[in-house]
């Protein structure tokens, strides 16, 4: 049991479309971060949400946006999909304090054709 749940597990979209990925954090966690893991690469930080606000952002364009709900769950939205957006998208939850390890979900595999 991962504790962090993500949906859907797989998704196929066409270039130019929009996609929404969902994440429920581990019970007791209040912070959600999203990572993109391209094939053969390590996870890359997209952004982090705490108290329903984006707190930090990695080097990703504005096409990538998110939301956090009062129950701490989160969504990742990607607009105007490009072929290069094909990747595994990982959600990680943690406590909002320094040194809190990340707990990961199984990810959503997005394929853009």
């Amino acid at each position, binding site marked *: 049991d*991962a504790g*962090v749940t993500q949906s859907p597990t797989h998704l196929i979209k066409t270039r130019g479309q929009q996609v929404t990925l969902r994440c429920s954090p581990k019970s007791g966690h209040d*912070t959600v*971060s999203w*990572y993109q893991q391209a094939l*053969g*690469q*390590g*996870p*890359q*930080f997209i952004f*982090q949400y*705490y108290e329903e606000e984006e*707190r*930090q952002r*990695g080097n990703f364009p504005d096409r990538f946006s998110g939301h956090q709900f009062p129950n701490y769950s989160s969504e990742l939205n990607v607009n105007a999909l490009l072929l290069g957006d094909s990747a595994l998208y*990982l959600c*990680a939850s*943690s406590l*909002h*304090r*320094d*040194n*809190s*390890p*990340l*707990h*990961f*979900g*199984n*990810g959503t595999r997005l394929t853009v054709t």
Partner: protein
Amino acid sequence: AQSVSQHNHHVILSEAASLELGCNYSYGGTVNLFWYVQYPGQHLQLLLKYFSGDPLVKGIKGFEAEFIKSKFSFNLRKPSVQWSDTAEYFCAATQGSFNKFYFGSGTKLNVKP
């Protein structure tokens, strides 16, 4: 910006062999270091972490890692690997801000029975 390097992309060992996976980070300030493991078909799991204190940290399943500040390294070791250690291993670092993790590109370990 901080970066994490893992120079061993693919390691093949026989059971009972000793393991050492390299990890180097670029940030010169306070750094928190982690090793995560991803078993086939499973989510990323925390193996061990270093925040401060004793530079030799012990994790689950007999793994340990040594923080060497002068070398900017945090290598992962295990004296005797098992077939069940077959997985991908990721080194990660945070630069003190809340939970913005930088990951290496990962090392795939294949242990032959």
